């Protein structure tokens, strides 16, 4: 139980650290947000009155006349209660929560499914490769996946586009989440279109993400197979398949699971690039757009959300380890 409490404490602490970074980075950087905002507004051709500016700044939680600590406390409060303000970027005035709500399902669907798929597939292939040590699969797997795991996400995306989406007979679409002529609805045509538009981005994530998990799983498997309990199981004549998954695989899987949570941040960074290349209207693309239009409130909320997503996954993996590994339970 102490283990779980400690993990929850870590969760809260990291979240707090992320929010604090979020608060202090814009205030410590050269050039005040106030100036950036003024530039942004005057660029649009409209003249901003000081009152308007002050209102927007207040939404942003920035008040130059106020004590920094007071601002910080207020900021923390509004972050926790999901009062994230309104966008000051390309979609001026729209509440940040609404913008995020529109984009979230797309990213969850695309990135969630392809990441979990990559993890499951990678673990399975890694288990088999490690089990048949020196066999045909093990001869091919490490070199191939060392190469794919080092490929830049955006390059794989560009490669897939130039192979499948551009040229005389494009097979698959290369941008957006569904055909623009369609209206969203629960019908075959729309769902088909969504799937068609998702194939290339999902394939990009799958290709680049699967390699790392295959390699770590294979190496864990090789290390585990040398353990005495595996030899013991062999001596007892337990069927190979049962040894492979129940004895070796189960133990080799534990570090991989923790690794999954760790590498999630990396996957998310790849997603920003993938969504950018494919113009996929998810959170990653929104993050990029918020950067380009210096949309501080949106950027702030997105960063918080991404951190939260990673942390929740870390926590889930911790729970899973807790359930799967008796050592984690007893050690506390």
């Amino acid at each position, binding site marked *: 139980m102490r283990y779980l409490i400690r993990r929850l404490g870590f969760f809260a*602490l990291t979240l707090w650290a992320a929010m604090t970074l979020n608060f202090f980075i814009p205030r410590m950087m050269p050039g005040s947000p106030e100036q950036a905002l003024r530039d942004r507004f005057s660029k649009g051709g409209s003249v901003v009155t000081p009152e308007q500016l002050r209102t927007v700044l207040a939404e942003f939680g920035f008040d130059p006349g106020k004590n920094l600590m007071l601002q910080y406390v207020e900021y923390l409060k509004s972050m926790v209660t999901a009062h994230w303000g309104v966008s000051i970027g390309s979609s001026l005035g729209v509440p940040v929560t609404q913008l995020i709500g529109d984009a979230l399902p797309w990213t969850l669907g695309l990135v969630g499914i392809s990441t979990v798929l990559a993890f499951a597939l990678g673990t399975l292939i890694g288990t088999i490769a490690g089990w048949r040590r020196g066999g045909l699969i093990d001869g091919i797997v490490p070199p191939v996946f060392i190469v794919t795991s*080092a490929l830049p996400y955006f390059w794989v995306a560009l490669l897939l*586009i130039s192979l499948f989406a551009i040229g005389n007979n494009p097979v698959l679409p290369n941008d957006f989440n569904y055909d623009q002529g369609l209206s969203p609805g629960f019908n075959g045509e729309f769902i088909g279109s969504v799937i068609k538009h998702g194939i290339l981005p999902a394939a990009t994530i799958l290709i680049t993400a699967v390699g790392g998990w295959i390699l*770590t799983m294979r190496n864990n498997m090789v*290390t585990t197979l040398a353990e005495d309990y595996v030899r013991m199981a062999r001596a007892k004549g337990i069927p190979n398949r049962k040894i492979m998954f129940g004895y070796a695989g189960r133990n080799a899987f534990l570090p991989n699971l923790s690794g999954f949570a760790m590498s999630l941040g990396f996957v998310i960074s790849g997603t920003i690039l993938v969504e950018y290349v494919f113009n996929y209207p998810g959170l990653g693309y929104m*993050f990029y757009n918020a950067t380009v239009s210096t949309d501080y409130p949106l950027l702030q909320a997105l960063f918080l959300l*991404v951190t939260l997503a990673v942390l929740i996954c870390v926590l889930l993996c911790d729970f899973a380890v807790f359930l799967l590994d008796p050592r984690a339970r007893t050690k506390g």
Partner: protein
Amino acid sequence: MSAVVAGASAPVSSAARRPRGGLLRAILGNRKAVAGASLLLLFILLAAFPHLFVPWLHGDPRAIGDVPLEGPSGKHWLGTTGLGQDVYAELIYSTRESLLIAVGAGAGATILSVLIGVSAAYLGGLADDGLSMLTDIFLVLPTFPLIIVLATYAGKGNLTVIIIVLILTGWSYGARQMRAQAMSLRNRDFLESARVRGERRSYIIVVEVLPTMLSLIVANFLGAALYSVLTAAGLQFLGLGDPNSLSWGTMLYWAQNQGALVNGLPAWALSPGLAVALLGVSFALLNYAFDEISNPALRPVRRRRAKANS
């Protein structure tokens, strides 16, 4: 201390079995290491003597030409950009900055992770708790979004900003491993004897501990360099680097901006990315080979088969 386990690909005890003296032979005997090292050597040559590879070029590789958006030809091996610049010449001359970012940020991140990891293990107690917690937090903070946020507020990043940001976000994974290994070394006999001899702490760390950890440090550097190559290219691709710099990521940015793929110029759109990928592959191959060298259990099985099955 938290229960998140560092990847098992870095076995803590590996340093003890590090082959002494035969490191060069070990590298030459490992096919992955040879492939990775030759690729890296090629890139170092390209970075050091770019003019040897583009002998006909005099002056700026970014010189604007008369024939924009041309496909690959005998004169322009990889075609030209929207401003008529020769893609091949740009590609060769971009090697330097990209390699510099990789090595600079990789080395910086490694040094930082050694400092934090080893001091956490050696100081112990409250300092260890604090440093470990810091490492764990940085480990799960999504770094790329953080980098983007930093780069946005800092303005378009020049080379130094990018390298510093990469170092600040890339050290945590290594620090975890360093701490784990330094912890396992702590009570070894040779350190005990050094302590009994009355050596100073700093002497023990520099002369006794660090050499023992060398293989992990090298592996770490390779991993950090790989991370830096990919991340820097991604940043520049998004337009967060200096748009006037000569590097692969910037080339990709311009190719994307000027619609290289849509204009039917895949050579321009894909070649800088291929260069990034190859440099990344060379680091990854070397990294994996180092794992194999320092941990014999992971080596491809050839003659050792009978032993493994017994």
